[in-house]
């Protein structure tokens, strides 16, 4: 399961999609909206995606993780639209027979997602709106 969604993400649904019975180890990453960013308080975030390409790139990342770390199943859900403080922006779940691989594969997926997947976030703060550019 790979989805770009405007609906609230249900963590259990993503976990269920990554975990067949007897999956062994499941590693999950949940990213939520913080109220502070680079030293200043923010009110909320707005996420925008190029959804078809985002889903395609996430699929490629998942395929790479499957090859490298014996991943059995993986699920990724990324939210778009307006997000309030504390809301979930992304959930990644990965199941593997052995736990070390689960952590490594899950971390790889979130790291690569942040690098190459066409999703953007805009911070709405007291001093205005800014498209985040972590690479600047």
């Amino acid at each position: 399961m790979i989805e770009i969604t405007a609906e609230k993400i249900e963590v259990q649904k993503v976990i269920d999609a990554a975990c067949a019975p007897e999956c062994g180890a499941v590693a999950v990453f949940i990213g939520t909206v913080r109220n502070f960013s680079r030293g200043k308080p923010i009110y909320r975030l707005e996420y925008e995606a190029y959804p078809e390409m985002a889903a395609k790139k996430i699929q490629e990342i998942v395929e790479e993780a499957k090859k490298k770390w014996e991943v059995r199943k993986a699920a990724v859900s990324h939210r778009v639209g307006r997000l309030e403080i504390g809301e979930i922006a992304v959930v990644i779940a990965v199941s593997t027979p052995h736990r070390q691989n689960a952590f490594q594969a899950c971390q790889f997926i979130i790291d690569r997602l942040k690098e190459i997947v066409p999703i953007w976030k805009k911070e709405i703060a007291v001093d205005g709106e800014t498209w985040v550019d972590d690479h600047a």
Partner: protein
Amino acid sequence: MNVTVKFFALGRELTGRSEMALELPEAATVQALIDQLKSAHPRFARLKSYLVAVNMEYADLGAPLHDGDEVAIIPPVSGG
């Protein structure tokens, strides 16, 4: 030939468009498309950092375009 150009995030806000159709000479490259965008939309030139995707795959400036291609201007991503 005709291509579709998609804009997102800061690129969308600068151009005021999320999508536009563009007519290009046969065998034009990504670079030629960028040059045309810059002259047609001066505010686009204010987008300093971006990648280009052709049919949902990142592409070099030298890549040739084809009729019907979907080109996307990809500002620095910040998902997650």
